């Protein structure tokens, strides 16, 4: 039976927890706004992962992890037409280019990286199909999900905090009129610099995220750090009033006479049975 839903409503952490606890085997496909990801699990462990956009071949992964230079990558690519990842892996090991452990480590890092990227997706339709295995020519690993779930939970908490600070992405940003005195010493990250040119009250955060290719989580992180630095400000919507605290109400059966309560319940049970 397939498990379907949207990451907006059912988070990846919850999903991984389910797969881990139920020792599930199958494929998780997540369709995001700009990309799709396929992750395979075996008995509740991460086995394989690939994205729709990248080169997911072994040679591509080794190049990405800088174990192969660009020239080596092109050379091998040109000569391995039709060769499966397993065959290529054996060839590279037998030719003493890499050890088996180096190849497995690279794959493991890549698969974890693909899965971690999903944590930054706040939207995306997912479908988990049980008993679907990765393609036979692919090399699989076995990675416990516990640490990934913990990391996902931590990130979810951070996201929750960011959502409190920046409740909506449909708001604009502008530079503050009088930035703090420490602005001369401010050092911005590469991602923050990507966002800076789009800081304009006319641009919403979701528009900036789209044009800078940042996930919702990432744009919130950047905007929050720029807010903290005191160089931009938001136009905020009014926040809803807090909910009243709940109060406890006693159970009428429990607070009454025990034997009378049992008698009442027995009468109700008998009546419901006859419905």
């Amino acid at each position, binding site marked *: 039976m397939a498990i379907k839903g*949207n990451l907006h*409503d059912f988070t990846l952490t919850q999903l991984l927890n*389910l797969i881990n606890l*139920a020792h599930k085997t199958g494929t998780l496909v997540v369709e995001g706004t700009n990309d799709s990801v396929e992750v395979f699990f075996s008995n509740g462990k991460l086995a394989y992962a690939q994205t729709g956009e990248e080169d997911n071949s072994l040679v591509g992964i080794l190049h990405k992890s800088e174990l192969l230079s660009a020239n080596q990558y092109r050379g091998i690519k040109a000569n391995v037409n039709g060769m499966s990842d397993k065959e290529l892996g054996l060839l590279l090991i037998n030719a003493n280019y890499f050890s088996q452990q180096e190849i497995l480590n690279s794959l493991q890092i890549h698969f974890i990286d693909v899965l971690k990227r999903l944590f930054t997706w706040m939207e995306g339709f997912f479908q988990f199909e049980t008993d679907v295995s990765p393609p036979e020519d692919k090399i699989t690993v076995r990675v416990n999900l516990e640490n990934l779930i913990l990391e996902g939970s931590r990130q979810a908490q951070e996201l929750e905090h960011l959502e409190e600070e920046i409740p909506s992405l449909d708001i604009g940003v502008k530079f503050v009129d009088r930035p703090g005195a420490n602005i001369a010493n401010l050092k911005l990250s590469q991602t923050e610099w990507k966002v800076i040119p789009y800081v304009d009250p006319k641009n919403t955060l979701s528009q900036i995220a789209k044009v800078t290719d940042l996930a919702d989580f990432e744009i919130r992180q950047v905007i929050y750090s720029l807010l903290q630095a005191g160089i931009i400000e938001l136009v905020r919507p009014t926040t809803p009033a807090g909910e009243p605290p709940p109060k406890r109400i006693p159970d009428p059966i429990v607070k009454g006479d025990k034997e009378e309560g049992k008698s009442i319940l027995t009468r109700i049970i008998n*009546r419901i049975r006859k419905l």
Partner: protein
Amino acid sequence: MQTLKMVVTGPFNAGKTEFIQSVSEIDVVSTERKISSEIERIKDTTTVAMDFGRITIDSEMTLYLFGTPGQKRFDFMWEILSEGMLGFVVIIDSSRPETFREARKILETFRAYAPTPYVVAANKQDCEDAWEVEDMRIALRLSPEIKLLECVATKKNSVKEVLLELLYSILAELESVEPALVN
């Protein structure tokens, strides 16, 4: 005449009205209105105040089933409805995992209002996309002792089973209560 009350709660469009309808001896008294919110356009009308159904137990006693409005903006009604209830049923649409988180919140809210017994009904188990109950248990973070029951709210026998399980829980809780000390 003694009147008793059970509450049927759960997210929007989980099947609360159908659940009550299936066992009520009167037409469910419902205050349905056209929906105005964009997000709630799954169905044409929804419960904005409450539903209630009736089961006459005998000449001296009547059981009322109250359905809570599903939308968050009516949650001020929940506390009023929960007052004096025997127990409550949380209905969840098994085919809409996007509502599970909300269901969990509703469950926790009702637990805070009244520490009465409750059961969780995994409704729409006849749907193709329905999650298996044990998967739902994990997703909803329900501990093993909480009753999570398969349910099809449009079928009377299925609803009866859920209500009976709730009543058995209430009975078990009552039996576990120590008699009060008398001075």
